[in-house]
C-alpha cells in the first residue's frame, strides 16, 4: 500500500503522528453512464497509491485482457467489482470506496447504474459533505445533470464540484468549459448551493486530478484532489444550535444517570443551560463524560454522555437542546418524501416514522404533489411510487422535537418503516411544522370511512359490552370512554338510557323485541364507525346469534366483544336499579338470568371479571387490549 510520503520509510513515528491528525471528507460522485465516473474514482484510488501490487498486477492483466484502453491501464476496472452481483439481481444501492492522502481520509459514495437512481443517489448523498457532478465536456449540461443537482440539493449538499470530464476530447478548449460553467450556474441558482467549483478534467489522462495540468494553462482553480483536501466542511454543523438526540440512557449504578448520544449540531460546555424536548424541562450540564475523561466542551459529531444538575425525566428519543434556542415541537409537519419501495405510499396508511432515535406511528395525511426529478414539474398525485418524490403533510401519534432539514440534517430527517414487513419504505426531510388549522386538505380524497377516521387520527371500532344486568357494563364503558376522550379520541356510548327512550321506545323485552333492539343498536353503531368514531355499546345482548349478527355488520377488526363477567349472585346483590328484587318477586317478566337465558360469549376478545377486579382495573385491561392491538397508536384509519 505504497503511500507517497517519504516519512514512512524515514520516520514512521512522525508519520503516524501526522496521520493521526488527518480529517475526513465524505463525497458522492454523480454522473450518467459513460461520463467517466468509474475512471475518475479508479484514478483517485490509484493516484493516492492505495492500491496493492497484487491488485495492481491483476488490474494490468485485466486491462490488457479487456483491451478497453489498448495497452494502458483501465482505471474503471478498479472499482467495477460489482458486475457479478448485478447479474445475480443483488441490489446495490451504493458502493463505498476509501482512499486517503497525507491530509485527509476520503469516503466515496459511488452509486452505480441508473435504475433505482433516485433511491441510490439519495442514499449516497445523505452522508456526503460534497458532491462531484460529472459532465461530459462534449455534451454539456443535460437532463441528468438537473436530476443529480436536484437530489443533491434535496439532501442538503451545499458544495458542488462541477467536474467537466473528457476535456481531452474537446482539445482542452477553455470556451467549452466557460460555456458549461455559465449554463450550469444559471440553471442551478434555485438549488441553494453555497459553492460551485468548476474543474476541467480528463479522468482518462489524469489532467487536473492530482496536479494542475499543463494542458489547461488557462485554468487557475484547484486540481480536484487539492479541492477535496482543502474544502472546509463541518463548520455549519458546529455553528448551528446545540442538539443532542438521546440515544441511550446510561445507568451503571444508582448514583449515575447520564444521557448518551452523538452531538447532532452545535457545541456544549459544562454549566450550559439546556432544555429537554418535548417535555420542555430545563437544567444545566453537570458533566460531559467520555471514556477518555470528562470534557469541558463537546462539538457536533462527538459521541458523549451528558449528566445534568437536576433530576429530570429524559428518555431515548428526547432531544437535549440549547435552552434559548430549542427545536420545534409538533406532531404535524410538511416534509419531502422519497419513496423507496415497490409498494406505493398511500396517504392515510399507517407507517412508523423514525427520527433521531425515536420511532413513532403516524401517516401521511396529505400528498400535496409530487415532483418530477427531471423537469422539477409539480403534479397532483394520489400515491407515491418507488423512486418518486412528493411533498406531504405528516401526522404523528405524538409530538417530536425537530428542526427543518434545511437548518439541521440530523434533527430534520426521518425514515419511514412499513408496520407489517418492518422494511424501510421511504425517507423524508422535514420542511416545517403545520398549525392544525392549516393542515387539512381533503380535496384529494373522497370523504369515506377511512378519510373520516384519518381526519380524527384514530381507528374506529365498536367495543361491544355484554353481560348480565348489573354486571357493570355501563360503569366500565363510562370509564373507558373517559380515558379515550382524554387521549383525544372521538367517542360515543350507546346504552339503554339513550336508546330505549327514543329510537327503541316501541320495543319491549320479548325475545323478538330484544333481537330487534340489538339489530337497531348494531346498525347505529355501524353508522358511527362509518363516521370514524370509537363506540361503546352497553346492552345485555344475551344471545350469541345477535352479537354475531352485529359482528358481521362490521368490517374485520371493528367489532370488539367485551364480556363483563359477573356471577348472577353478585349482580343480584348489587342490584343498582332494584330489578333483581322485582324479578324475584315476580314483578318483571323475561328477566335475563331468571326466566330469560344469557348465552355467555365463547370467544370474547376481552373478558373482564368484575368480581375479581374493580371497574378501573377492568377499564385498564380494555385500554391495554386496545393499545396492544393497535387501536390507539394507529394514526389514521384502516386503509390497508
Amino acid at each position, binding site marked *: 500500500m505504497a503511500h507517497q510520503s517519504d516519512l514512512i520509510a524515514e520516520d514512521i513515528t512522525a508519520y503516524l503522528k501526522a496521520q493521526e491528525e488527518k480529517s475526513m471528507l465524505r463525497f458522492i460522485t454523480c454522473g450518467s453512464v459513460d461520463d467517466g465516473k468509474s475512471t475518475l474514482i479508479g484514478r483517485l484510488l490509484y493516484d493516492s497509491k492505495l492500491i496493492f501490487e497484487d491488485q495492481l498486477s491483476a488490474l494490468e492483466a485485466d486491462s490488457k485482457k479487456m483491451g478497453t484502453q489498448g495497452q494502458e491501464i483501465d482505471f474503471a476496472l478498479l472499482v467495477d467489482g460489482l458486475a457479478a452481483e448485478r447479474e445475480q439481481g443483488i441490489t446495490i444501492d451504493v458502493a463505498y470506496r476509501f482512499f486517503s492522502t497525507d491530509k485527509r481520509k476520503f469516503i466515496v459514495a459511488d452509486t452505480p447504474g441508473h435504475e433505482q437512481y433516485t433511491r441510490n443517489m439519495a442514499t449516497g448523498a445523505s452522508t456526503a459533505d460534497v458532491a462531484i457532478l460529472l459532465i461530459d465536456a462534449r455534451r454539456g449540461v443535460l437532463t441528468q445533470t438537473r436530476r443529480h443537482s436536484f437530489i443533491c440539493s434535496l439532501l442538503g449538499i451545499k458544495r458542488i464540484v462541477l467536474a467537466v470530464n473528457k476535456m481531452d476530447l474537446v482539445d482542452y478548449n477553455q470556451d467549452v468549459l466557460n460555456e458549461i460553467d455559465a449554463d450550469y450556474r444559471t440553471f442551478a441558482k434555485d438549488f441553494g448551493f453555497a459553492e460551485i467549483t468548476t474543474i476541467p478534467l480528463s479522468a482518462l489522462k489524469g489532467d487536473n486530478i492530482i496536479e494542475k495540468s499543463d494542458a489547461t494553462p488557462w485554468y487557475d482553480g484547484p486540481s480536484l484532489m487539492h479541492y477535496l483536501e482543502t474544502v472546509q466542511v463541518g463548520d455549519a454543523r458546529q455553528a448551528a444550535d446545540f442538539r443532542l438526540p438521546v440515544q441511550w440512557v446510561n445507568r451503571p449504578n444508582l448514583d449515575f444517570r447520564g444521557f448518551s448520544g452523538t452531538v447532532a449540531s452545535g457545541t456544549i460546555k459544562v454549566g450550559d443551560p439546556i432544555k429537554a424536548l418535548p417535555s420542555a424541562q430545563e437544567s444545566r450540564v453537570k458533566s460531559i463524560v467520555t*471514556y477518555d475523561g470528562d470534557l469541558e466542551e463537546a462539538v457536533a459529531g462527538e459521541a458523549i454522555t451528558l449528566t445534568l444538575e437536576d433530576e429530570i425525566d429524559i428518555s431515548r428519543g428526547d432531544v437535549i437542546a440549547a435552552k434559548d434556542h430549542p427545536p420545534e415541537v409538533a406532531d404535524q409537519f410538511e416534509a419531502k418524501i422519497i419513496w423507496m419501495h415497490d409498494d406505493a405510499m398511500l396517504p392515510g396508511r399507517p407507517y412508523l416514522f423514525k427520527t433521531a432515535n425515536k420511532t413513532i406511528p403516524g401517516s401521511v395525511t396529505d400528498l400535496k404533489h409530487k415532483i418530477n426529478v427531471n423537469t422539477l414539474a409539480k403534479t397532483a398525485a394520489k400515491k407515491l411510487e418507488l423512486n418518486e418524490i412528493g411533498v406531504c403533510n405528516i401526522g404523528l401519534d405524538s409530538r417530536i422535537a425537530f428542526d427543518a432539514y434545511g437548518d439541521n440534517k440530523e434533527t430534520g430527517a426521518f425514515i419511514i418503516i412499513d408496520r407489517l414487513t418492518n422494511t424501510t419504505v421511504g425517507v423524508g426531510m422535514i420542511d416545517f411544522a403545520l398549525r392544525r388549522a392549516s393542515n387539512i386538505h381533503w380535496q384529494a380524497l373522497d370523504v369515506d370511512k377511512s378519510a373520516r377516521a384519518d381526519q380524527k387520527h384514530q381507528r374506529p371500532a365498536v367495543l361491544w359490552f355484554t353481560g348480565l344486568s348489573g354486571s357493570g357494563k355501563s360503569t366500565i364503558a363510562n370509564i373507558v370512554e373517559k380515558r379515550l376522550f382524554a387521549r383525544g379520541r372521538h367517542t360515543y356510548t350507546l346504552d339503554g338510557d339513550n336508546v330505549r327512550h327514543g329510537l327503541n321506545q316501541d320495543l319491549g323485552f320479548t325475545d323478538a323485541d330484544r333481537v330487534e333492539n340489538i339489530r337497531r343498536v348494531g346498525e347505529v353503531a355501524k353508522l358511527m364507525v362509518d363516521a370514524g368514531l370509537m363506540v361503546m355499546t352497553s346492552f345485555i345482548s344475551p344471545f350469541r346469534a345477535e352479537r354475531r349478527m352485529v359482528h358481521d355488520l362490521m368490517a374485520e377488526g371493528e367489532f370488539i366483544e367485551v364480556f363483563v363477567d359477573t356471577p348472577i349472585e353478585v349482580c343480584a346483590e348489587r342490584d343498582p336499579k332494584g330489578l333483581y328484587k322485582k324479578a324475584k318477586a315476580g314483578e318483571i317478566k323475561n328477566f335475563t338470568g331468571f326466566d330469560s337465558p344469557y348465552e355467555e360469549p365463547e370467544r370474547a376478545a376481552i373478558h373482564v371479571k368484575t368480581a375479581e377486579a374493580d371497574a378501573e382495573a377492568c377499564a385498564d385491561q380494555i385500554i391495554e387490549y386496545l393499545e396492544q392491538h393497535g387501536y390507539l397508536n394507529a394514526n389514521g384509519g384502516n386503509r390497508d
Partner: protein
Amino acid sequence: MTKTLTHLKRLEAESIQIMREVAAEAENPVMLYSVGKDSAVMLHVAMKAFYPSKPPFPLLHVDTTWKFREMIEFRDNMAKDLGLELLVHINEEGVKAGVSPFTHGSAQHTDIMKTQALKAALDKYGFDAAFGGARRDEEKSRAKERVFSFRSAQHRWDPKNQRPELWNLYNARKNPGESIRVFPMSNWTELDIWQYIHLENIPIPSLYLSKKRPVVERDGQLFMVDDDRMPLNEGEEPMMKPVRFRTLGCYPLTGAVESEADTLEDVIQEMLLTTSSERQGRVIDHDSAASMEKKKQEGYF
C-alpha cells in the same frame, strides 16, 4: 472557532453511534469476538460507547479448537481484565467427529467448526443482533455492504431484501425469527485500524509482531507449527524464522509473513510499504471458487 474532528474520531463516533443504537433496540445483542485486530478495535470502541457502564452485551467467541494458543490465552485475559462476560462456543460434535483442517480441508473445516458453530451458538442463546468486525474495504465486493444486515431464521442472507441506509438512521426492526448482523466498523480501512491501535494503545496478540517461530513451508506459504497436532510431511522439519501474521485465524490456515517488524510502528511501516493485500494470508479465500456472496448466503460471516 471550529474544532475539526480527526478522521479516527469521526470513525470512532460513528461506530459508537451504531453500537448504542443496537443496544437500545435489540433484545439480546452479542459481540462476536474473534481475537484479531479488528475485534480488538471493536471491543475498545464498545468500552467507550457505554462508559461508565460496561457494554450491555456479552462477547461470543466461536472456537474452532484450531486457533493459535496465544489467541485463546489473550482472549481469556481480555475478558477478565475488562470484566466482560465471555461465551465460548465449540462445535462439540465436530470435535467428536475429528474435524480438522488436515482431515477435512479448509473449506469444510471452516464450514463445520465456524459457520455452523456460529449459527448454533446464536440459536442456543437466542441472540437477535450480533456485532461483527467486518470492513467494507476488505474486498471489492464488500464495498456495497449495509451496516445492518438482516438474516432469516435460518441465518440466510437474502441479497434482495436488504434495507436502504440513509444518514445515521438505522432501521433495527425485525420480523419474528430474524436476526441482524451489525458491522459498526464498516467504514474503517485496514490502515485506520492500525493507526487507531497505535493511537489508543490497544492490546493485540503478539502474533501480529515478528518473533522467531517454528514454521513449515507449504505451497509457497509459511505456516506456524503451533502445537503437535500439526502433521508433518516426510522429512519436514519446522524451522525457526522471524515471522508475523497479518490476520489471525486457525493456525493451519493462516499464512505467516517473514518479517523483522517486532514493534507496532514497524508493522505499520512495513504494511505501508508492502505490496500485497491483507487477504492474501487467508487460505479460505483461495480455497474455493465460491464467491464471498455465496459464503455469506450460507451464513459465513
